[in-house]
């Protein structure tokens, strides 16, 4: 996924010879799979929630399940907490990952290699293990509490089973991808440009604001839309670390479908979730398209 972020350079030889159907054949399989396993179920879900029998049994255009969702305070609360969690995660990810990436880009030696390894590490930890480790460390009477207690400090207010639980877990889980994308964006910043700015007396903040940020704004957008897409529909961490209510859309959909045996409302929730995700996805598509247009 990460190498999709920066636009691949156009091939040096771009003659008509390379536009034979081989290329189309190579992409045919993934395109077919996406159409079959992603696009078709989406169309199917939209159709099934909009075109169905009403109370009298007459099949027709029917918005009831959407009206119910948006008039039901419980559903609205779940959607709100999902948006809140996503926003918090996006802000925290930027605040945490931008300094790490800047550090990794502009320093040399062995220490940055270790820092990078640390930053990539969460990629290899399954989220279920992360969730239980979180409970052992940040949970009530967990490791942090034990350490604080041993030096005579009061216990922390544990984020376990509160809305902050999933936020902390999801941020940790998404650090690697965000750092990698930002790092590849920072690769586009030429050292000469920074040196030139310094020569005319720019301080560190001015270099960051006027030289680096404009060059990487695209990567920031891509990194955030990737993280947001994953977080919005996340399941495991909100399920294990979050409160019973309000719940994020992932656990909410799953519960409505399996536990409440209500496929219609579950699909409606899925379509609504998908609409939010497609809005975030358009950011990504737009920035890639803009990049390729250059």
């Amino acid at each position, binding site marked *: 996924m*990460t190498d999709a972020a920066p636009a691949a350079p156009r091939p040096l030889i771009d003659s008509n010879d390379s536009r034979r159907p081989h290329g189309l054949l190579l992409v045919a399989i993934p395109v077919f799979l996406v159409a079959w396993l992603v696009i078709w179920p989406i169309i199917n879900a939209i159709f099934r929630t909009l075109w169905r029998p009403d109370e009298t049994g007459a099949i027709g255009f029917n918005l009831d399940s959407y009206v119910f969702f948006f008039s039901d305070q*419980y559903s609205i609360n779940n959607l709100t907490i999902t948006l809140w969690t996503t926003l918090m995660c996006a802000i925290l990810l930027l605040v945490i990952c931008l300094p790490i990436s800047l550090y990794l880009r502009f320093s040399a030696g062995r220490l940055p290699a270790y820092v990078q390894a640390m930053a990539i590490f969460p*990629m290899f930890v399954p989220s279920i293990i992360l969730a239980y480790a979180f*409970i052992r460390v940040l949970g009530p009477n967990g490791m942090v509490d034990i350490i604080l207690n041993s030096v005579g400090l009061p216990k922390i207010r544990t984020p376990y*089973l509160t809305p902050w639980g999933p936020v902390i877990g999801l941020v940790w889980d998404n650090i690697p991808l965000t750092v990698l994308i930002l790092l590849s964006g920072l690769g586009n910043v030429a050292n000469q440009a920074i040196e030139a700015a310094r020569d005319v007396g720019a301080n560190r903040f001015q270099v960051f604001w006027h030289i680096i940020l404009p060059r990487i704004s695209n990567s920031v957008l891509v990194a955030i839309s990737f993280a947001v897409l994953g977080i919005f529909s996340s399941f495991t961490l909100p399920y294990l670390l979050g409160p*019973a209510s309000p719940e994020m859309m992932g656990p909410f959909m799953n519960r409505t479908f*399996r*536990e409440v045996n209500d496929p219609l409302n579950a699909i409606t929730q899925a379509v609504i979730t998908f609409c939010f995700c497609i809005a975030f996805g358009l950011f990504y598509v737009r920035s890639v398209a803009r990049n390729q247009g250059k």
Partner: protein
Amino acid sequence: MKRRDFMISAAGVVAGSALLPRMSFAAEGVIDWYTSSDSNILDFWTNTVKPAFEAANPGVSINLVDAGDGAGIIAIGERAMAAKQQGADPQADFFESGDALLPAGAIEAGIYTNIKEAGLSNYDKINPLAIESDYSLPYRGSQVLLAYDSTKLSAADAPKNWDDLVAWIKANPGQFVYNRPDKGGSGGNFVRRAIHQANGLDPSAFTVDNYTEEFGNEALTKTWDILADLAPSLYDNGAYSSGNTQSIQLLAQGVVTMTPVWSDQVLQAIDQGVLPADTGLVQLQDLALAGGFTRSIVIENGVNRDASLKLADFILSEEIQSAILTELGGFPGVSWDYVSPELRERFADIVPTTIPTFPGGAWDGAINDGWYRNVAPNVDRNS
């Protein structure tokens, strides 16, 4: 950049190999066995039932597969129905835990064996109260108990009826937690006990097909009042753990003093040292917390139908039924008359004469939806 490339390609290889189709065919003499139960049940089969059965039946072995949850078992049942239509091999012989009514139409399609008429030598020993269908075999039961930290609460002070329990929870705010009713039976059956409490302590008032919206609203609204009244006194002013294991974890970390638990899981947790040996267990005496029986199913069109029936007969034998008590901490599926006298004596105290049960069906959806809407949102949580 090389580090990154390596990691990306390594991740790709791992992801790719996980997606490769697994080719498997059912083999004669290998019983394809599926469960939806927790891992302690899988351990019990791996360590106790499988070796004993294979020793008693040379040439037959059991392939133990975890189907995940109830929905996983239903999916395999649907596969068996599809295989039956096409005359193909369902690649499944035995469900450790299943509902004969699911997937809908399975009995009519003829994929489940009629166990009553299959001629099992031990069939008559089954506890008649546990039989739900001729197509499923209740072989073990489990009850929900209250487990408590005996360093903070003495056995003499442990609540023994619902009113005492409510009084204790309110007198000790933050010391009780139960898990969300859909995320594990210990919290689920605590909620069902509250339903019994709100409706005259009569389990027979609820049956699998007597759910109507009107009766449901009436019975459940009273229950939500009881539970919402308890909420501010629960752990963290009304937080609910997300599973049976997490409740036990909170008890083990000394965060709460008492929580509802499955009898088999808590005995195993004590056995493994997750909970201390002096963890107290108590059952409410006015009406026990609801429990239930686990029912096995034999697949009629499976390659190893006959061997599976032998297995079904085997798990009703005194050897396995005693092991369910001693090693699993569960209840026998057979009547108590068929359990050895010394075991009957030893477990007399914690074993109630009946395990109240609560029906599934439409009640499940109503309880799971209603609890989340009426009990879980706790507006005063941060006050």
